[in-house]
């Protein structure tokens, strides 16, 4: 088998680059020798998921921005590209990825960002990683280099395999390229901190959420609600006047997103609880920090996975462990029915079980 005579019959379609062909050849070889692959960029998110026993497929040789037209609001980028490089290119044009993905000390690659699907503080207001995915090029479990979605804002032809790739932890294919929607950065911003009890902070957030107040981040720790306002000059100024509080350094959000705040230094394992936005303050077994206006709660805790996941599930959410080796189910277990469909989908798209086997769940 060889990667040489792959299709390029469609008008305007780019042929595979040398580095893309190399990745494809590695997949073909792995298929041939039946060797599972551990797909990684910089491996900056090694703390997430179960260990994968496989040969490393490093995407970083496949790097660079392929196409960026700021007036189209679309960027196409190779998966091995450092995320910081992409963000800098967008910044030059006054644009950004609204899901505010963490860069993990500048290490993260774009492919890893898509595959892990982690979004930053702006998530509840601007959407997740999957929301800005428009198209992907993917090497499949049959060793084919295929294209799904595209570089246009709207596209409902066929099933949405591009968005499915987001947060699939590389278990459904090797992403070689992704096209994303980008947006202009806000004209104006203001960062503030208010001292108030957490119950009251959650009430205020529920109230503000029903009004056109340009909140784009809301986090609670150390007795303070931290807020970011972004939008036009007028709306930000009037909301800032109305809410008051003391000014906050904008760097707070980066430190939160990159897990560099003191809170994250606690030696206990880090857990992420994803909960319905209005969930009241919970008695959690450990130290906690609220983000996403309460919909994402970070927890430093030694409690057992079963305990935390049962607790999250009682409140309509789920819990994920952010440290490797703590538990065999770092992701909340699925219902038997969902598990069955996950396995069937994996089996269909990656019949030989080549890609990151077991990274999310045992047997997947």
């Amino acid at each position, binding site marked *: 088998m060889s990667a040489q005579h792959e*299709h390029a*019959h*469609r*008008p*305007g379609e780019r042929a595979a680059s040398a580095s893309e062909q190399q990745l494809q050849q590695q997949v073909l070889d792995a298929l041939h020798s039946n060797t599972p692959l551990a797909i990684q960029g910089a491996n900056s998110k090694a703390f997430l998921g179960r260990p994968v026993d496989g040969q490393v497929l490093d995407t970083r040789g496949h790097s660079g921005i392929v196409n960026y*037209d*700021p*007036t*189209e609001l679309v960027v196409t980028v190779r998966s091995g590209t450092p995320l910081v490089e992409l963000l800098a290119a967008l910044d030059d044009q*006054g644009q950004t990825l609204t899901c505010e993905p963490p860069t993990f000390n500048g290490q993260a690659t774009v492919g890893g960002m898509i595959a892990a*699907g982690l979004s930053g503080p702006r998530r*509840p207001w601007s*959407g997740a990683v999957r*929301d800005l995915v428009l198209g992907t090029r993917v090497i499949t479990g*049959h060793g*084919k280099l*295929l294209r799904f979605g*595209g570089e*246009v*804002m*709207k*596209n*409902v*032809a*066929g*099933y*949405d*395999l591009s*968005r*499915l790739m*987001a947060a699939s932890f590389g278990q459904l294919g090797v992403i070689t390229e992704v096209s994303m929607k980008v*947006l*202009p950065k806000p004209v104006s911003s203001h960062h503030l901190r208010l001292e108030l009890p957490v119950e009251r902070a959650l009430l205020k957030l*529920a109230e503000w*959420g*029903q009004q*056109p107040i340009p909140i784009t981040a809301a986090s609670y720790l150390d007795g303070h609600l931290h807020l970011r306002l972004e*939008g*036009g*000059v*007028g*709306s930000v100024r009037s909301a800032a006047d109305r809410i008051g509080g003391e000014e906050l350094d904008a760097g707070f959000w980066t430190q939160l997103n990159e897990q560099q705040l003191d809170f994250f230094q606690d030696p206990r394992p880090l857990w992420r609880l*994803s*909960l*319905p936005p209005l969930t009241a303050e919970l008695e959690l077994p450990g130290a906690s920090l609220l983000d996403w206006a309460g*919909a*994402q709660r970070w927890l430093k805790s030694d409690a057992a996975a079963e305990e935390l996941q049962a607790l999250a599930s009682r409140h*309509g959410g*789920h819990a994920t462990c952010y440290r490797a080796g703590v538990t065999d189910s770092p992701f909340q277990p*699925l*219902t038997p*029915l*969902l598990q069955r469909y*996950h396995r*069937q*989908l994996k*089996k*269909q*798209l990656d019949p030989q079980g080549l890609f990151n086997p077991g990274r*999310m769940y045992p047997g997947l």
Partner: protein
Amino acid sequence: MGPKTIDNKQVISVNLLYDEKLDGPLPPVDKAGLINELRQTLPDLELLHEREDLQPYECDGLSAYRVMPLLVVMPETVEQIETFMKICHQRQVPVVARGAGTGLSGGALPLEGGVLLVLARLKNILEVNPEGRFARVQPGVRNLAISEAAAPYQLYYAPDPSSQIACSIGGNVAENAGGVHCLKYGLTVHNLLKVEIVTVEGERMTLGSDALDSPGFDLMALFTGSEGMLGIVVEVTVKLLPRPQVAKVLMASFDDVGKAGKAVGDIISAGIIPGGLEMMDNLAIRAAEDFIHAGYPVEAEAILLCELDGVEADVADECERVRQVLENSGATAISQAKDDAERALFWAGRKNAFPAVGRISPDYYCMDGTIPRRELPKVLQGIADLSAEYGLRVANVFHAGDGNMHPLILFDANQEGELERAEAVGGKILELCVAVGGSITGEHGVGREKINQMCSQFNDDELLTFHAVKAAFDPDGLLNPGKNIPTLNRCAEFGAMHIHNGELPFPELERF
């Protein structure tokens, strides 16, 4: 709405009705046995099987194609759907879901040998939660009814297809419907929290959650836009947004379509994302003005409608900036709706563009291609050339902000050969969209209508991947067979047809 009925012979000649030779064999169904079992197991389930009762269901919004279903069932509860699906699965009966039947691509076109599952009666709004900013509704709830229910709380559901007074939220999920406010507020897929599914085997499955994400693969994204091929949507939880404090609409006239297209890029380059940004060409302007009297400039070659919404101070500021941009891009006139009534009127013209065009032509055929915006002048020129070549007028309505075109091809089905010509023009327009890097459908879906054009947008391996996804959720192919994804056989046939015309070589044909 849509072209009129034409007799079956014409339809078969264009090869869009289910063809077992091309689309795969369908299981034979014992109609009497099925009716018996349904009556016994589900005595309260309304079931239609007399010819005259079935008639209203023989087509959706793509009314040129009509097929009498074997049966129509109209459940009122989710439990009925679960049992119904179990029975159909056990008996291997194909099932086509239908919401309100406003789809424009024949997605809800029945099968002679299959049951049409109509979800329109499940129309309860189960919960509107203002603090949590979500609404939980049954699949048959109309799109606009959600915003109406949320209105007392100053909230609304953002995706607003022009068909919003009629189309169902279940159909919106199945098509990933868009509207005139998508560029800023997203498509259906961006505004969902949770979707309840009944699988082909009749089991209930939750995708998404009450939180902002859920563990495992993003099956909610996969199911959105899947055209009833992977499961039946039986409940939907949508996000609600606070109503913008103010919304203003600017209308700009241009003496050239290309200039209007460039103005769109200029607005976005200025860092402004309008709430809505729509374009119409002269033929569409005239038709809409004649119908709605929206105050459109009938002499203009193109108009842009640009809505800016948000907090008062920001909107005033943005209106000024957009006005500047439009002036610099060569707009010949710019007016701003003076109040909400005039704003509604400006939009009414646009939202009624399809029926308006329906008034100036016996029939029209609506296309839904998307393109990178920079290709607009080229594509519009291509459409004009095709229009001249085939002797059919084309009106252009365009979700300009996000590159989604709706060329409306005007024809008269009673004139010999006009439907075929309209379809030929339509097919070529879609191929043109693909050629410039776009897609054959931005929001109306593939359904049955664009099944052949799928072969131009995707290669065989991509199509096989789609079939693999289908097989993971519906291995027997009982859900909406023949829609959305063509078989390789069909593509080979379609390719052969193209070779006959000497146009599009299909080098992979040798694989069959």
